[in-house]
Structure formats: structure tokens, C-alpha cells
């Protein structure tokens, strides 16, 4: 039994493709493609099997709160009856896909509140730290914090979404030595203690980024969510080499100096995205280890997906809740906590890879951080492929400079009108003019960021902020400057061209087109993701 829980999980590995290698499953939005990679010059990077979760998560949570790391006392000693306590937590973008109940945030927040109740704390606010993301709906909040917490706090207005555009709800706390303005949620700034509850899905999450990004607004974010920062983040999944994180760490210091006291609770999850058993379990098995049942399920699913309308497929996939298990929890001082968290993320994700490749292929799934219960529009396809997946490396990018990235995704010319209104205008107006991130930033960003209508929708509807599609585009700036060509297989031709990429019908066509850039007989590496992995490229 390759995936039996009684065996130690196997680490990720690199498969050298030969003539006998089976076709590889590529994610393709709300579907899958089976692709045969050229033998002798292709390799596939497989993720590690899911690590075992903590056997007693509730016990581990309590232990972490009572035995903090770094310069912090145990949680009960930080609480007193007359204090202002703010509990902030990660928003709908984590984890992906959303996890089965009980969500880690619910477990932690209930334990924290129980300790706060014991200490007699009355003044408690809970804030979804969503920066410029869309507001979470009641159902989503209930899923994250649980019904008990929601029913106790939300009706009294004590559990709410962060509003970065509330003129009375934000405050500027200072400036970093680099001239970066640090804006912060006023309630959190005025609290005696801010407890941040985090889920670290990838190495980019957590640390000072939790608060310095999650509880801030455009005034601060423009300093690190920009083209310059992204070009100097190699990669933004590797904190030591990420200008994005350096900026957040500087802002974290300003917060500390301004007297904001943060008790950081960070958790890591395993990569049990599709379950060890169940209808999608074959997606986290290696193809040659599929049982007859796995093959039958996959074929049935493929046939079913072929005849299903796209909306129904989206609905079906969005009901999937990952059976993630918590692999670690640590609490206390932000930086000390984050060191251990990052090590635990790497323990699950890192796969050693030798050398770069001419062509990097990737199959993009149906979900990214910004389309939960929504539509993966073309801008998000670019962001997921060239932003997140491209940056899942440590050391050097998987693809050589001037190489080609081939993405598999349907890339529909479709947008969620409620969630992504500014994306529509960005796609129709900005990308029709230019796809150069630097030019886009210079020419359009301010107008979108300060647009009253987008601000209104962000504050009162469930829309991402007007500037958000810009950030998505900047997320891919490093990849755009690094690679020679981007090809999308199976995408909507017009949408792909609008993105500035080349469309291809099949992977074979895409490889043919790529040879114009990288020459004949190029080396190919496929990033088999998700379940999540991070390439440690030497």
C-alpha cells in the first residue's frame, strides 16, 4: 500500500521520463489532461506524500499557547480583564482548497477565547485580515471560525472583515528607513494585544506578512506590491531572497516600535489535498501506482466532466474540502515563530532538483488564492502560473533564463462580476494597451486604486479592491522578465493572446512552438503540482 498511513510518507522525487513512463496527469482547470512527455529529455517533479498530522491537535494548540517561542510570555499571562484584545485571522485565500471542518482557525480561536474568558477579558474583536481581498461572506466566516464563535461575536458587530478603505478605521503608525509608510487597522493598533491566527500553506505565508499585509491598506501595500519588489524577489517563496518579505519585516519593526504587541500563532498543514481515499485520491498518487479503481474513477470522472456545463463543474469542484491535517503549531514572538513554521513548510514541500530546464510545463488546477467560490479568470491564470507556480523554487528558477513556460489551463474569457469587477476593466482596457508590468504600473495603477466605485464595491459588496488585478499582474513580473515565451495549452485563444501569450491546442504543438525559442531537443521539466511542492534547485 503506497499511501497507507502505517508507512512513513515518502519524500518527493524527480522522475526521468523514458519510453515506458506512463502519460502524466496535468491539471487543466476544472478538468485534467493526460500528456505523454518526450522520453529521454523530460522529467517530472512529484510532491512528497502527506506528512502525518498531529495526533492531538487541540492538545498541541493549548501546549503552544502555554509554551510560546521567543520573547513572549505564555498567553494567559498576557491577558487581563480590562484589556482590549484583537484576534485577527487569515482570510478565505487560505488554505486551498478550503479545508474540512473543523477549520484550524476555529480550533485555535476557540482555545484562545476560552483562555481569554478564563482571564475575564471582555473587550474582544475578531477581524478577518484580508487586506485588499474581497470580504468574506457569512458562510465563509462560519466555516473559518465555526458557528459558535460566529454566533457569539458577529451579531454584535465584534467579528468582521478588515476594511482598508475605512477612513476612521485605519491609522498611519510611522515609516520604515526605506520611506515606506506603515498603515494599520486602527482597532488592532489600539489593542493591548493582537493575536494573529495563521495557516501556512506555502512558505510565502506568515511572519510579519500576516499583520503588515493582512491588516493594512493601499497606502502601505504599494510599497511592496509593485514591479520593483517582485523583480527582486527570487523567489517570493524564499523569505531570505524576497524583497517582498524584507519590506514586510521592516514594516513589522515599525509596528513593534509603535507599541503594537503581537502574539503570533502559526500552523502548517500537510499536503493531503485530495485525500488518501475518495473520488479524487488518485490525483495525489503516482500514475503507476493507481489501482484499477483509481483508473476507473478517473475515466468516469473524465467522461462526466466532458458532458458537464462549466458552471456545474465549477460548483462541483468548489464543494471539495481538503482533508488537511495540522503538522505543527507554534506561537509567540513573530520572527522566532516564523523560523520554525518555515522549516515545517519546507519539510513537507521541498523536493531537491538538479539543474534548470529549457521548458517548464505546469497544469493549473481550478483554484488559486483569489477565486475561492468564484471564477478563475485569465488574469488569475497568469498569476497562478507565472506568479505562484513559477516562484515555487528555492535557489534558481526551474526554467533557465530565456526558457519557455507551458501552462495547461482552459483560460476562459470569463469573470465573476461581483468578485472581480476591476479585473474586467483591467483585462479590457489595460491589457488591450500593454502587458508590460512596469508600464501598467506607471500608467494605470493609481487611477484604479483610487477609483471611488471600486472602493465602494470593495467596502460594501464582495469585490476585490480596484488595484488587486495589478498586483496579480506584478506577481508574474519576475517570470515575465525571466522567460522567453509563455504558451498556454487548451486555452481560449483570444484570452490567451490578450494576456500576451501564445495559444496552443496540444502539448505537442506547444513543444513545437517552444523549439523556436529554446532550439530543438530541449529539456523539459513538469511541475506536478498540486499537491503542493517546492523545487530546491541546485
Amino acid at each position, binding site marked *: 500500500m503506497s499511501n497507507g498511513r502505517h508507512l512513513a510518507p515518502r519524500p518527493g522525487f524527480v522522475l526521468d521520463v523514458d519510453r515506458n513512463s506512463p502519460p502524466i496527469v496535468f491539471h487543466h482547470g476544472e478538468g485534467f489532461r493526460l500528456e505523454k512527455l518526450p522520453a529521454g529529455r523530460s522529467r517530472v517533479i512529484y510532491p512528497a506524500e502527506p506528512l502525518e498530522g498531529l495526533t492531538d491537535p*487541540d492538545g498541541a494548540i493549548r501546549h503552544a499557547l502555554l509554551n510560546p517561542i521567543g520573547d513572549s510570555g505564555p498567553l494567559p499571562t498576557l491577558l487581563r480583564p480590562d484589556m482590549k484584545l484583537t484576534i485577527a485571522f487569515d482570510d478565505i485565500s487560505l488554505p486551498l482548497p478550503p479545508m474540512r*471542518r*473543523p477549520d484550524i482557525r476555529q480550533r485555535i480561536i*476557540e482555545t484562545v*477565547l*476560552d483562555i481569554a*474568558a*478564563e482571564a*475575564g477579558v*471582555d473587550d*474582544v474583536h475578531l477581524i478577518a485580515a484580508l487586506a485588499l481581498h474581497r470580504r468574506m461572506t457569512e458562510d465563509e466566516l462560519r466555516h473559518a471560525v*465555526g*458557528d*459558535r*464563535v460566529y*454566533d*457569539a*461575536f458577529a451579531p454584535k458587530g465584534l467579528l468582521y472583515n478588515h476594511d482598508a478603505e475605512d477612513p476612521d478605521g485605519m491609522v498611519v503608525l510611522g515609516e520604515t528607513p526605506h520611506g515606506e509608510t506603515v498603515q494599520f487597522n486602527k482597532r488592532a493598533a489600539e489593542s493591548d494585544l493582537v493575536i494573529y491566527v495563521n495557516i501556512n500553506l506555502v512558505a510565502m505565508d506568515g511572519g510579519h506578512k500576516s499583520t503588515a499585509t493582512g491588516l493594512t491598506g493601499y497606502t502601505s501595500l504599494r510599497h511592496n506590491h509593485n514591479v520593483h519588489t517582485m523583480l527582486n524577489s527570487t523567489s517570493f517563496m524564499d523569505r531570505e531572497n524576497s524583497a517582498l518579505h524584507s519590506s514586510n519585516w521592516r514594516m513589522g519593526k515599525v509596528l513593534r516600535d509603535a507599541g503594537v504587541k503581537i502574539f503570533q500563532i502559526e500552523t502548517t498543514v500537510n499536503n493531503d489535498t485530495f485525500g488518501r481515499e475518495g473520488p479524487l485520491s488518485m490525483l495525489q498518487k503516482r500514475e503507476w501506482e493507481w489501482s484499477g479503481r483509481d483508473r476507473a474513477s478517473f475515466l468516469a470522472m473524465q467522461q462526466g466532466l466532458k458532458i458537464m456545463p462549466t458552471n456545474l463543474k465549477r460548483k462541483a469542484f468548489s464543494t471539495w474540502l481538503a482533508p488537511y491535517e495540522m503538522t505543527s503549531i507554534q506561537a509567540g514572538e513573530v520572527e522566532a515563530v516564523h523560523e520554525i513554521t518555515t522549516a515545517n513548510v519546507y519539510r513537507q514541500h521541498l523536493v531537491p532538483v538538479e539543474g534548470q530546464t529549457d521548458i517548464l510545463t505546469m497544469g493549473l488546477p481550478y483554484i488559486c488564492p483569489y477565486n475561492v467560490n468564484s471564477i478563475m479568470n485569465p488574469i488569475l491564470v497568469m498569476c497562478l502560473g507565472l506568479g505562484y507556480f513559477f516562484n515555487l523554487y528555492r535557489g534558481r528558477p526551474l526554467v533557465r533564463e530565456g526558457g519557455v513556460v507551458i501552462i495547461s489551463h482552459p483560460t476562459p474569457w470569463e469573470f465573476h462580476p461581483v468578485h472581480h469587477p476591476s479585473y474586467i476593466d483591467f483585462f479590457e482596457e489595460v491589457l488591450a494597451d500593454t502587458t508590460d508590468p512596469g508600464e501598467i504600473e506607471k500608467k494605470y495603477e493609481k487611477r484604479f486604486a483610487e477609483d471611488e466605485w471600486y472602493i465602494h464595491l470593495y467596502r460594501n459588496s464582495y469585490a476585490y479592491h480596484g488595484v488587486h488585478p495589478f498586483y496579480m499582474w506584478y506577481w508574474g513580473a519576475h517570470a515575465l522578465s525571466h522567460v522567453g515565451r509563455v504558451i498556454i495549452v487548451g486555452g481560449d485563444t483570444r484570452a490567451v493572446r490578450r494576456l500576451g501569450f501564445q495559444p496552443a491546442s496540444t502539448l505537442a504543438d506547444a513543444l513545437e512552438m517552444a523549439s523556436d525559442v529554446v532550439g530543438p531537443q530541449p529539456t523539459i521539466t513538469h511541475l506536478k503540482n498540486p499537491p503542493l511542492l517546492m523545487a530546491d534547485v541546485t
Partner: protein
Amino acid sequence: MAVRLGFPWRPAPVPPGVEPPEPTRQLEAEYDTAWARRFPARLIRASLLETVMRFVMFVLASPKRKGTDRLNTVDGPAIFVANHHSHADTPLLLTSIPEPWRHRVVVGAAADYFFSTYLNSALAALLINAIPIERTKVGRKSANLAAELLDEGWSVLIFPEGGRSPDGWGQPFRGGAAYLAIRCNVPVVPVHIAGTDRILRKGRFLPSRSNTTVTFGDPLLASDGEHARGFASRLEAAVASLGHEAASDWWQARQHAHAGTSPGLTGPDIGAWRRIWALGDRGKKSRRRKVLWPEL
């Protein structure tokens, strides 16, 4: 001339002066319920529970079920203890307890009430998987049976108050459930039921509709050396706290629980009318007759 058949075709007459023995009645605590846990009875019960009972509860009780996620940590059988207002409590709980426990639960039922006749006994055993529990005298048989069933993987539902509430307030928990939990080392899941007193409270025979809330609490284990009486008090406090959670919210309930100011299950120790008065909205509903035309 008809021949009159004698013994052994007819019973032998009791000799004069001899006291005949009392006929043995296999009722009350002696009633054997094993047949009700075999496959055919289980199948009938499961079918009725998932159709008739669930529908009736949906119509009568509109149940709101909270805290079932707290049972995630329970692995194996458990003892469910709940406050008790009404005959509606048992079907409501049986349709509320989540899988995998729902169809493997036996209900501790008063031996002197539910097992007083053969018909009642058979119905109680078949419909709710009841086992007889002595509540008027101390007996080893009930406890042994419950312990055996727990060992076999059955969960047990017990109302530790020993009977339905006479006035809307709860009654002190007896030690039976706590004793059983300590003896078998199984977790106890406290459950609070609100609203069933308005459906079919003690003394009423016809049910009426009301909204109900079933709140499951965190499973509790007896600590080392804890006595049944002390554990029973802890269970009572846990159910009371769940009642507070259902009436207010989880945060207030936790604050009061830690401060030791949770409203108790048994109500204030004052005169009868003041106890009813203190029930407030939870008390008896006005039964004024509706008239179509005002009396002049």
C-alpha cells in the same frame, strides 16, 4: 358421557393449605432486550428512525443541532447524558446524535415506567432500543448490562435526572452515568436540549409544535481518582453551561463558566411559583382560548 381429562392434561390443583408461588414476571429490570439488538430489529428501528421519527421531529420540533463537531475527538462508544423535559427528548436525540453513533445507541429507560407491561417493553425495546434502568432501587443488573453493551461497542444515552422535569427546571444529576463512565473508562458527551418542554411536557398527552435546540458539548473523561458523585456534578455543570450557550452564545457561556456564574440547570432554590416565574419565556405558554369574535 364426557370424560374429564385430569393431570397431566390439566394443571394439578393446588393442595389446600399450600400458598401457590407468585407467577414469575420477566418485566421491568428483568426484561430481556437482547432481541432488540439483533439485525431484524435493528433494521426495523433504523428504518423507522430515519423516516417516521425524523419526519415527526422535523414537523414537531424543527431541531437546530449545534456542536456535533465536538464529537470529532471521540473514537468508539460514548455515554450521552442530557437534561430531560419531555418524551420528545429521546426521539429528538436519536435523530440528532451523528453517525457513527446514531444507530448504535441504547437508551437507558426507567424500568418501572417503560417496562411495566410486555407490550410497553417490546415497543420501547424495538422503537428506541431501550434497556431497563432501575431508578427506585439500587440494582446491579442494569449497570452490568449497560457496561456489557459499552464493551460491545454500543453507546448509551442516559437522562441522569432520573425523570422528566416537573416544572421546567432541571433536576440534580444522579451518579449512574458517571459511575458507568468511570467503570468502563468511556467519554461522556454532555448534551443540552431546549424547547421540548413546550412540545410534550410532563402531564400532557397531546404534543404541540415548538422550536428546539440540541447542543452537544465537549466529551468529558473522569479524572484519575474522581468519584462518581463529583463527576456527575461536573456533567451537570457542563450541561448547564451548554444550556447557557444555547440561550445566549458560546462566548458568554465560557465567560460565565470560568467565572463560576453559569446559571444552574436546577434553577433557584425558592418557592414553587417563583421558580416558574424565573423560567421567563421558557415557562408554560398561555393557553387562552382563541375567539373569533370579541365577547361584549
